[in-house]
């Protein structure tokens, strides 16, 4: 994950980072172990929190059937039968709970640029510029 690479910059800016996905904690343990991640990965069962951010979608039937042939049984992987996923997204939330940066893209092969996240954080904490 490109996010791991900016962990020192985030720390210098006084920011913390969490990733959220619907997959079960055992998969997050595996990811942290194999990729040497130092940030928390949280499990959002059924994409309930993703839904509150406006990110939850139900997979269309043809994609659902296709995933089963991969084989990828999301029901088993996520411990939830909803066959929903979050639209990939990143937010910066300030200490008052307001969203100060938001980026999302339904294309699963793209990711927000880490530099944009850092630029947003620098505007929040000018005194701690890295």
């Amino acid at each position, binding site marked *: 994950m490109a996010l791991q690479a900016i962990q020192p910059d985030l720390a210098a*800016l006084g*920011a913390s980072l969490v990733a959220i996905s619907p997959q079960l904690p055992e998969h997050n343990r595996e*990811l942290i172990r194999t990729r040497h991640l130092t940030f928390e990965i949280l499990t959002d069962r059924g994409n309930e929190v993703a839904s509150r951010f406006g990110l939850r979608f139900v997979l269309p039937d*043809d994609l659902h059937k*296709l995933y089963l042939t991969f084989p990828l049984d999301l029901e088993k992987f996520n411990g939830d039968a909803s066959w929903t996923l979050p639209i990939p997204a990143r937010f910066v939330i300030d200490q008052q709970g307001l*969203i100060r940066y938001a980026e999302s893209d339904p294309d699963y*092969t793209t990711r927000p*640029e880490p530099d944009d996240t850092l630029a947003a954080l620098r505007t929040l904490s000018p005194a701690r510029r890295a």
Partner: protein
Amino acid sequence: MSLKAELKTLRARLEANRSPEALAIMHRAVEDLRKSGTTDRILRVGDRAPDFRLPNANEELMDSRVLRAGGPLVVTFYRGRW
């Protein structure tokens, strides 16, 4: 690895050995999602972020109010490691 290089690797991993028919279904789902209006509901800059309590990899509950108390909180949503 740069983000660009990482994304190339990501695309290769996600789409490796997929038939043209499978790729068509995967790509159409992305386009349909874009056109569906679903993305209009995504929270924006200036909106209040919903607070949450979710389990980490060790099944300990993490509270967003605690996480953002000491400084800004970056939250990334992703689909999964598969």
